[in-house]
Every structure is written in structure tokens, then in C-alpha cells.
């Protein structure tokens, strides 16, 4: 894994629950879990306690490599929610990872106007004030 966690996370924080705790705990070790079902072989994201494809409980937690490409995105010029006031213009998107799932995420980039569908991105983490690591993706320069 080649990820960073120096950056500070601003914005909303996830609400945790026992079912998703393993995902967020893994984030704190700079790992992003996409589960793979041992029964049907399908991957799934977001995290669940079972496989949503076949309802087997034999799901394996696997850390992704951290590569991906932008599947779609939107440059947000206006979000009036106070929690995002510090973000300025930012990019939300869906990243497709080679592990086989699409991930809703923030796409950090020095130039929002340069993002395209197909732009390569890499996993990164930012640390929130409460110590929780938040995963996101960053355009590869």
C-alpha cells in the first residue's frame, strides 16, 4: 500500500455501527476494504455483514490495491451546507476500481476542470479531528 494520511479531513463524519466498524477500523490502517464473497465470488461495496448478491455470510475483507479510474464525476460549484463551506469548488465522483466495484467518493485534484471520465486516480486518506481516517481518491499527476 502506498497511501498517505497526513491530510486533515474537514466536512461530515461517518456514523459508525457494529456492522460497518471493520471497514472504518481498516481505514485507520490505511486500508480500503472491498469485500469478496467466498460463496458466489462477487465483490461488493459498501461494506455489509453478508454478501448482498447471494446472502452468504462467507464474505472476505480484502484491501484494494488503491488504483482506479474516474467512472463519472461532477464539479460542485454550490453546496450551501455549512459542513462543506471550506471545500470551495470540489469534485464528487464515482471511481471504478480493478477489484470490480464502483465507489462514490471525493476526487481531490489541483484542477477540477481537468478531471475527465477515465482519469486515473489513487486511494488516499485524510484524518478527521476524532482520529478517524476517511478514504478518498486523488488524481494521479
Amino acid at each position: 500500500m502506498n497511501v498517505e494520511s497526513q491530510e486533515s479531513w474537514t466536512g461530515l463524519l461517518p456514523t459508525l455501527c457494529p456492522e460497518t466498524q471493520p471497514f472504518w477500523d481498516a481505514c485507520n490502517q490505511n486500508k480500503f476494504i472491498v469485500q469478496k464473497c467466498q460463496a458466489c465470488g462477487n465483490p461488493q461495496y459498501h461494506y455489509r455483514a453478508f454478501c448482498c448478491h447471494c446472502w452468504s455470510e462467507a464474505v472476505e475483507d480484502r484491501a484494494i490495491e488503491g488504483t482506479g479510474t474516474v467512472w463519472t464525476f461532477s464539479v460542485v460549484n454550490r453546496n450551501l451546507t455549512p459542513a462543506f463551506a471550506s471545500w470551495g469548488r470540489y469534485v464528487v465522483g464515482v471511481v471504478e476500481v480493478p477489484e470490480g466495484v464502483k465507489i462514490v467518493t471525493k476526487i481531490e485534484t489541483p484542477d477540477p476542470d481537468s478531471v475527465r471520465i477515465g482519469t486515473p486516480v489513487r486511494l488516499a486518506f485524510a484524518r478527521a479531528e476524532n482520529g478517524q481516517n476517511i478514504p478518498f481518491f486523488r488524481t494521479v499527476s
Partner: protein
Amino acid sequence: MTGIQKLSNVAAIVGAYEHPTRYAPDKSEWQLLGEASRGAILDAGLSKDHIDALFVPATASEGGYLGTCASVMAADYLNLNPKFIEETDIGGASLGYYVNRAIAGIHAGLFKCALIAYGANTRSRKINVGTVSYNQLSQVELLPIPDSFEQIYGTTVISFMGMLTQRYMHDYGVTSEQLAAVAVTFRQHANLNPDAARRDLISIEDVINSPIIASPLHRLDCCIVSDGAGAIIVADKDIVKESAKQPVWIRGFGESIMHHGGGLTDWSEETRAMVKRACDQAYQMSGTTSADMDVAQIYDAFSYNAVIDLEGAGFCGPGEGAAFSADGNLRLEDGSIPTNTDGGGLSSNHPGRRGIFLFIEAVRQLRGEATGRQVKDAKVALCTATGAAFLARRGSAAHILGV
């Protein structure tokens, strides 16, 4: 008749009323609901005592605040004693889902006369429907699943529709100018509708030059926010005989949902496939095809919605909807399928859950009551609506109405 065809022509819309207001700071949402309900039952030439089923949208972050248990509370406010109540929540498509459930209930013999009603003063409440985080809009904390995996990244309603539009434009080489034709055409129709919220004509350049809210969506690619209310009466054959006006029969209906599929769904392709599943059921039930339609009312929360529904309904092929619009096919006077003849949500009326107005405008067109914007000899209408929970969890409804 076998299979779903037995549900064709089971019920008709016998009353329809669209409240003329688009801004009603002096009225409660209850009063708007009540005025629309009274308008519809008067239009039907029936009385409140005929109503034995009630369908109202659940309280919605994007428009309509009747509180918890909205259907029971609405029955209390209207002092109705329905045998059957419903408030299934599929966003703005909910009203179409109510028509489906009303027909199912009428076919099952559970009731005879359903009131489907909606009212909201989203505009006078100054609700920022599209430009805040969804949890702020819905005024609830982030749920552990799925919100905490998505909304922490700053997703807004307009940005998620932007993401869908972006992928669609990429897959098919669609331009912003082609998409802009949707808003331009519907504004031309709104210009003929004295009740429409926005009536000034606009150009492609006006759309392109309006500010981008969340790329690639310009302000004029997005629906307006209005106050508004509307209601319809869906009734069985016995009630039809008692009603005053020409019945508008529900020839066919369909519905379908989509979701993220554990992260595997192609949001863009599945959106069209969902609309197609809903439309195909409606076509099959009614024994019609897209070629039989005289007029269409499509839920246009964004220009993209109109385009994808045109494709899903079979008026053109995948990726062709924007060019189809730009070529003038939706125009009232000379289009191959005049669409959103009232101006749609982009220009006429969008208090949050626009679905009811599709039926009302279709009824006006089929009865020949669409003064100033009447499609000549309109006999068959298609209504399609897609509503959203959040991101790509969505549901479509399709209806074929005829006289």
C-alpha cells in the same frame, strides 16, 4: 384476457385539478392539499362521499411536509374515511406508483374511488432542494448505511444528477447544446400556459450561459422550485358512469426500480433499462407501442430525465434522446411527439413531487381542454416519471392514458 392485460381499462381518471398557484406563502400545505382535492372532486362532478381510498405522498425532504403518517393525517384533515390508504415513497414518481396501486386495489374490489392528492410550498419555505447535502435537506443524521459511505463526500441532489448526466454525455458524445434544447422547447410550451412559473422564452445560449450548479448541469437544465398542488380521482367503471366528464382510461401501467447492486450497477445504462421495463409493461398491458402515442408528459426534474425517458420509452435509440429533442421532435406545433405541453418541471410547476401534474396535463390534452396549447386530436398519452431516493436508488413509473 390473460396476464397483465386484464388490468387494462380497469379504471379511469374522472377528475383532475392543478392548483393555479406557484407561490402561496399565505397557505399551509394542508390547505393546498385540500384545495386541490376539492378541485378534483368538483371536476369529476362527484362528492367527497364517493372517495373510499386515499393516496398522499409521505413527508418529503424535497417538498411536502405533512408530518409523520401523512396518509392518516390527511384523511383526518380532509375528514375522509377511506377503506384504503397509501404513501409509498419513490420521490417524485410516487404519484405514478399510487395510480398503479389504485388500479390494483380497484381490480381486487377493495375500493372504487381513489383520491390521489399532493400539495407543497417548497418555494415559500425557501428550501434549497438541489444545493445542500442530502442529510441537511432531509434533516436527519447520516445513517451508518449507506449515507456514511456517500454523503460525507459532499454529494448534493444536483451533483448526483450531474454525475448521471456526465456519464451519459460521455458514453454517447452528447453535447450541452443538445441537452439545452430540452429546456428551450419546454419553455416555449410554458409560454403558452398562463399558469406556468416561467414564461419568458429562452435560447440555447441562455441555457449554456446560465451558471453551472454542479457540472455539467446549468441552472436552466434544472427544474424550478415552486409551491403547488394537484389531485386526480381514479375510479372504477361504476363511478365512471356517475362522473361528469369524459373519462380518461388507464390503458396500461408499469413500474420498475434500480439500485447500486452492491457496487456493480452501471448507473447510466440501468437508468434507461429501468424506464424501459416500466414502459414495456405499460405497452404490453395496453397493446400499444411508442408509435401510438399522440402526446407525452415526462417528469423533467432535469433535462437529462426527459432525454433518458424518451429513449427508454422507445421514441428514439440509446444516446439519441438529446439530438431527438434538438431536432424539434418534442415541439407542440410540429413535433413527432409533443412533450411536456404545460412547460414541465423545468418551466411550469415543480414543488418537489411533480408526478401528479403529468396526469393532470395528460387529462387536459385528452379531453381537449388544453386551451392555447392543445395537441390536435390527442387520443393516447404516455406519462413517465422517475423519482429518486439518493444517488442511483430510483424508481420509474409509466402510464398510457386514452380516450
